[in-house]
């Protein structure tokens, strides 16, 4: 069974590869290469897989999942300039692909028990663009 919980955060970022020239960065990333940064309202959907406990009828305590998502992701990402304030984006380009992988890596150690195993991370950069990551085994 899959259970998905959603949360929002807002952050700014720049998409640039420091090994490339200004022109190459502009060609590759367009407006997202603006060195001053720009922002998005990100929507994060975390999907957990498991079977309901026979007594509680729940796969996991959704309050606990919400607290984990807030503590491990939202409190770190929300209203931050990702490139400057959130590791590893001082050296990794904060594309939605890399953000999905980073969020997976932050959540996975907390969602690996027999009940409620992390299944997937979906991050919406805008309502029309999202990335799904299912871990390095997928």
């Amino acid at each position: 069974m899959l259970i998905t919980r959603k949360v929002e955060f807002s952050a700014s970022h720049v998409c640039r590869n420091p090994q490339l020239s200004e022109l190459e960065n502009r060609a590759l990333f367009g407006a997202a290469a603006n060195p001053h940064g720009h922002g998005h309202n990100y929507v994060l959907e975390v999907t957990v897989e498991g079977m309901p406990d026979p007594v509680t009828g729940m796969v996991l305590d959704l309050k606990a999942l919400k607290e984990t998502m807030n503590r491990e992701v939202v409190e770190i990402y929300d209203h931050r300039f990702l490139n400057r304030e959130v590791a590893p984006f001082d050296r990794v380009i904060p594309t939605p692909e890399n953000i999905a992988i980073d969020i997976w890596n932050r959540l996975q150690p907390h969602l690996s028990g027999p009940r409620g195993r992390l299944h997937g991370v979906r991050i919406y950069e805008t309502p029309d663009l999202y990335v799904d990551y299912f871990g390095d085994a997928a």
Partner: protein
Amino acid sequence: MTGSIELTRKYRFSASHRLHAPQMGDAENRELYGKCNNAFGHGHNYEVAVTVRGPVEARSGRVVDPELLDGLVRREVLEPLEHRNLNEEVEAFRAAVPTSENLGREVVRRLKQNWRAVFPADGPRLERVAIAETSRNAFEVSAHEIE
């Protein structure tokens, strides 16, 4: 290594269609398709979600260059279908009823046929296309369903 990752981009276009299977009689068509069988046709604001899968490229931190994907979808799907009567103006729907099922298959066919002109062999792959005729339904077609 990070494994594969999927990126989905949503697009919109508006078009008209009529659901009518010529192999069946008029009464049967009315019975099966209901209002969608109206002889004059009707329209929808379609939403097309295109999902691409591949490794994250180190140089860009991306699976796919969204501009290349947007360009391909615009040329092959949005421009040919935008504000068209699907039955009358799109070749594929002369022989097939323009249901969302068949529309999804046609979008996959168009993207797959032109994919290699835009993306290298070791680049991102088309994974699936989802068509929403209205916000209350969704039709997903996997890329491997279409040759």
